[in-house]
């Protein structure tokens, strides 16, 4: 039971990262690799500000820092015409140094003993068995989903969705597609950094390396969500990404619990999940093609 609640809590906190990935990968249709860096960035910012005694401010600083990281990738891509994947890698690589600098040159700092939003809720609300933390994580997740879902219904949100779908058409409609891209990358990375900040306060430490592989974990969550809910509207997509994240954590926890895999297999499992999910359509096509080929060959023999 503790295991399940723990996974749900983690899943809800990582869900916010999955939302960010959903925005860049699915809505904007742009593989954004800044995420690995901006997750650690959110953690680093949150750790430093939390230690100074401002757990709420820590979250806002993380959001701000994350949006700047996304904006940097966006500007590299749109203004300097650098390939989006490379732009993301460049920013991610640069952020490694930035993150270390924020944490005062240390690769790992502990937040233990400082006030966090989780410890505050635990002391304020009297609910047994870590229920307070779950509710807090859930409400943050719902608030973020609501804000994003409403944003994507506005004119500007529609422009971002269209940019991911057909950039030419957006320009023909007299909308600056570059602005849409930058804002979407900013929003996505702000979500990722917020998730990093929450994880930092939840786990009471910040590690410069914890961002690595986050892109794949986020993408795995999005894909798991899509296999359950299907690919429909943006609102459903956001909710399904969050569900995917929770499910991913539950699956992972049980897989580790029954000693199916060692703990360090986490990233390989994530990668395999994403590979299986992404290869689905082409495997289907190969099977279909083989079937046709066999049928065609039998026709020849009959003649």
């Amino acid at each position, binding site marked *: 039971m503790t295991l399940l609640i723990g996974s749900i809590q983690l899943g809800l906190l990582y869900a916010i990262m999955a939302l960010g990935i959903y925005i860049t990968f699915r809505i904007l249709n742009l593989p954004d690799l800044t995420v690995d860096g901006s997750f650690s960035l959110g953690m680093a910012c949150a750790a430093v500000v939390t230690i100074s005694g401002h757990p709420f401010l820590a979250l806002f600083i993380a959001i701000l820092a994350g949006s700047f990281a996304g904006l940097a990738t966006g500007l590299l891509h749109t203004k300097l015409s650098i390939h989006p994947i490379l732009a993301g890698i460049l920013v991610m690589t640069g952020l490694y140094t930035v993150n270390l600098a924020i944490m005062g040159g240390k690769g790992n700092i502990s937040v233990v003993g400082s006030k966090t939003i989780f410890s505050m809720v635990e002391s304020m609300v009297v609910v047994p068995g870590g229920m307070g933390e779950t509710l807090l994580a859930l409400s943050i997740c719902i608030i973020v989903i609501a804000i994003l879902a409403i944003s994507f*219904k*506005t*004119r500007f*949100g*529609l*422009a971002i*969705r*269209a940019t991911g*779908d*057909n950039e*030419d*058409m*957006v*320009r*023909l*409609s*007299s*909308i*600056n*597609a570059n602005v849409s891209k930058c804002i979407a990358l900013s929003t996505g990375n702000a979500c990722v950094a917020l998730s990093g900040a929450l994880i930092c306060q939840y786990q009471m430490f910040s590690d410069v390396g914890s961002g690595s592989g986050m892109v794949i974990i986020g993408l795995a969550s999005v894909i798991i969500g899509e296999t359950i809910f299907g690919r429909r509207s943006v609102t459903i997509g956001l909710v399904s990404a969050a569900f995917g994240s929770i499910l991913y954590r539950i699956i992972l926890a049980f897989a580790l619990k029954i000693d199916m895999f060692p703990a360090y297999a986490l990233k390989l499992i994530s990668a395999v999940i994403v590979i299986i999910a992404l290869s689905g359509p082409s495997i289907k096509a190969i099977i279909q093609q083989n079937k046709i080929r066999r049928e065609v060959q039998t026709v020849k023999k009959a003649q």
Partner: protein
Amino acid sequence: MLALTDLIIKLVVNNMLDLINVSKTFYAGTVNERKALNSINLHLDPGDFVTIIGSNGAGKSSVFNAIAGAFYIDSGAILLDNKNISMMADYKRAYDIGRLMQDPMKGTAPSLTIEENLALAYSRKAHKSLFALNKRDSEYFRELLTRLDLGLESRMKTKVGNLSGGQRQAVTLLMCTISLPKLLLLDEHTAALDPATALKILKITTDIVAESRITTMMITHDIKDALALGNRTIMMDEGEIILDIKGEERSKMTIEELLTYYSRERKKQLTDDRILLA
């Protein structure tokens, strides 16, 4: 005082589009150097409907690209409604210029619904509203779609990706004209469609243009259409305008005469396997 003279100029001089000595060379200074536009001069009055013909590589699409801002011209000037737009970014020009491409896939976002596509195109001139979809606009879109007579008014929540090429092109046509641009550019917009659908889209096009009186330029490979539609026909070759006819001269022009003129002027046959002679 300056504003007053501007106003007088605007009232007296009837200009919608002016191309003044517009030139564009690609790959200048290399072996691949190609003059796409060679000192093009063109003047369009408001409400003009110009058809453009010419063989492949004649510069028809280059003229459109120059006007729409797909590339910046090397020299000359482009004036839209007396405003120099030569160095304006393409998406800014799109505020006043609607452009329809040959490929029906290009003008619409496939995973958005018909309604959302129209809303996006309409955001140029729509009333300020936070949300992209609202009742007032939806009613307007429904009315426009009903006029297309393709049954699309009952499918406003359908994703555009599920529509046929002809239906998509019809929706794109609405998107291009929904905000009443000053200029409409039609780049062989029926060429990728089957003949029956092409005819229908062409009919819708002429209806919309006639009703809205938008100044229009249309590239076509069908010489018959070129002479039958609109009020003026331009023939291009090697980046130059070699013929510009309107009025009586145009109404008397036959396809044969046009082809003879071309071979006499250019000392070659109008060779283009895509040109339709009948």
